């Protein structure tokens, strides 16, 4: 009888473990979803981000990437958040030394799932991603080419 309980418990653990894994979104699935959000724009790069929750009293962790962008080009940055985490990603785009824009406007409290950049200078740009309120999160940022300007 004891053995039956053990077998039952172990099967339950295996099944629960598997069901969690099956429902978890992979980075690749997020990239594909994000590709749809980007619409007609042509996919260039994806950045898969997973960050832990901020520790009390500390700044929210953020992921940083640098990309080369070309002048006279319109780019689209699209964000897709994993449904497995509560964090909502915020994207900030910097040139060499200043913030050009963000997907979250603090003044209005409004978030945008994507942002277009009309780039007028060829060079290196920096993309910072963090999660609202320092929550734990997973997201994909997709960089796409929209058009020549």
């Amino acid at each position: 009888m004891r053995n039956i309980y053990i077998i039952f418990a172990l099967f339950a653990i295996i099944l629960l473990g598997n069901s969690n894994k099956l429902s978890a979104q992979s980075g690749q699935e997020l990239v594909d979803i994000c590709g749809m959000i980007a619409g007609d724009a042509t996919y260039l790069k994806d950045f898969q981000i997973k960050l832990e929750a901020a520790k009390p009293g500390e700044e929210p962790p953020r992921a940083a990437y640098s990309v080369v962008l070309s002048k006279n080009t319109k780019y689209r940055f699209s964000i897709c958040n994993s449904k497995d985490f509560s964090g909502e990603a915020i994207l900030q785009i910097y040139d060499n030394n200043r913030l050009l824009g963000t997907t979250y406007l603090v003044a209005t409290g409004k978030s945008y799932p994507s942002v277009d950049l009309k780039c007028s200078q060829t060079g290196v740009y920096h993309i910072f991603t963090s999660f609202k309120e320092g929550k734990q999160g997973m997201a994909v940022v997709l960089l796409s080419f929209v058009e020549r300007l």
Partner: protein
Amino acid sequence: MNKRLIYILLPLLIFAACRSDKQKDVDFSKEFEVPDSVIYDGELEISEQAMDDIVQNISSPVEIAALIKAVGVPFSKDYLATTDFVDDYNTSFEKAIGLGIFGADLGYQNMYNKTGGVIDYISAIRTLADGIRVGQFFDFTTLKRLATNNQNLDSLMYISVQNFNQMDRYLRENNRSNLSSLIVAGVWIESIYLLGEVIKEAPNAELSEKIGEQKIILSNLMLLLKNYERDPSIKELIDDLSEIQEIYKDVTITYEKGEPEAIEQDGMLIIIQNDKQYIEISNETLFKIIDKTVEVRNKIIQL
């Protein structure tokens, strides 16, 4: 007896369940044996993290091909690198840089929806990718089907670019950034070659400026490659590219700062940078760069 059997079988069952579960997140580094020759174990001048900061989107076949198409220049298969000698690409260096070159050519063909010769290129890419043990990221079957049926051409572009990104990520995450950097270099060289060939046939100010602005891109690429200059093949490539960089000293780039603005249009957020960048390049310098790039590129593809 039964009890003993249960104790033996249950751990096996758990182990089997865990293994099958991991199929989705396969760690290819453990599945494939990578020869030592393709792992860069030399000292790095800059950290992998810093390199991540430099490397992204240094050269994009999509953007260059889109520009060539946008200025109204018709497609020409004469510009493409021949795949005839792909079996002669013996070293990891040759395979990685060849991958970049054929990747740029694939992007150029995809941009024009020219699927006729695409299969030769995806076959060459598969051969080279297999050669440096990243073939598992190149979805040859799907790409071949899309190209053969001449349908869903957006997917052809999407999957091929994504496959290259997956190879790039895998190489960088597995201490093989040297090969990733060579792929980037190959894409860059072939993209400039394509631009140069188009300019020779149909001179265009926008394309000339595009060659000029590569001064910025090349300096980033050199920074990346110099990290591996202890490798004699990469050192030779650096020397070749240094000659191009030397010519670029005659290209002047000036800037005028503007205030960025954000507007909302049809619910979409748009950032307008408002900076200005002026690129001055003489015809003489332009053709010196083009000619030198042809020389470097043809040496790589063994012409």
